[in-house]
């Protein structure tokens, strides 16, 4: 994906990230975050959560991957995420995004990003600044 190929308002291809327990365990292992609220549905419910939840920083990583899937080789300059409601492990969230600004001089685009839960509610909001070839 080159800068010339994109236009303001373009949608990024929607993704359905894998937030199965196996993936979350892998993430927690990589970040040394092995805590019951992330890896044990029952223990998480005892904490008042709807079930084990996806770490916020993993959801941020899912959005970064979505950008690279859309534009392999792109450089993420900044990724800002707001954690609104937890994403429950073993559910089926969806990631969507759209280009909201462009910068011809720096060949950068601003992308608004959202992760929605099974019910279609917003779990994570993000804004990324991405540099393209």
């Amino acid at each position, binding site marked *: 994906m080159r800068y010339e190929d994109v236009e303001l308002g373009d949608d990024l291809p929607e993704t359905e*990230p894998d937030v199965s327990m196996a993936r979350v365990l892998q993430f927690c292992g990589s970040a*040394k975050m092995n805590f019951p609220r992330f890896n044990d549905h029952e223990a998480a419910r005892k904490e008042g959560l709807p079930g084990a939840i996806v770490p916020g920083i993993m959801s941020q990583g899912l959005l970064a991957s979505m950008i690279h899937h859309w534009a392999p080789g792109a450089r993420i300059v900044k990724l800002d995420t*707001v954690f609104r409601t937890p994403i429950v492990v073993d559910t089926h969230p969806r990631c969507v995004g759209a280009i909201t600004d462009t910068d011809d001089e720096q060949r950068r685009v601003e992308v608004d990003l959202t992760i929605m839960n099974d019910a279609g509610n917003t779990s994570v909001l993000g804004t990324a600044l991405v540099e393209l070839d």
Partner: protein
Amino acid sequence: MANAESNVDNNVEGQNVEGQNADGQNAEGPSAEGPSAEGPVDIDAVKRDWVGHKFDSTQFRVHGDRMLAWAEACGETDPRFTDADHPDFQAHPTYTAQFGAKQLFPKGFPKLGRGGFDAGKAVEVHQPVHAGETLTGESEIHDIYTKTGRSGTMIFIVHRMTFSNEAGEPVSTVDWRIMRSAKD
């Protein structure tokens, strides 16, 4: 300066530096903060006194196997992040968001509001992070502000960590927004 290996395990979302954690978890607990202020807190005064205050420096080792596991777990497909033999192999852009300081707030920082939620993180990438590097994260209070909504006034404290590599070059800046209820 703390040991690099041991502090790799200091991640913010499960770490219990001061009882804080993330993703909607309660952040009450032992703290370096001072006693609760009596009466309404003057946020502007706290901001004047503390924004820009640097208070922690911690080192973190970057492990290639964890970089790979992180990228794979996040569904990454770009070989720069998933292939250790790629000539431009590097950590996923937000990899440094896992690294937490030894303390969330400076000693003597006033206790603002109650509870505590991880309201979000912003990661700015200055240059790629590579396997085997040891990063130094410097912490400061970057901002303090309030927002009022249906559930009342919330206080936001932004803990900024600026990461640099062994050459002293900045590689990443992570802003962690911690939200607390202004209600007593």
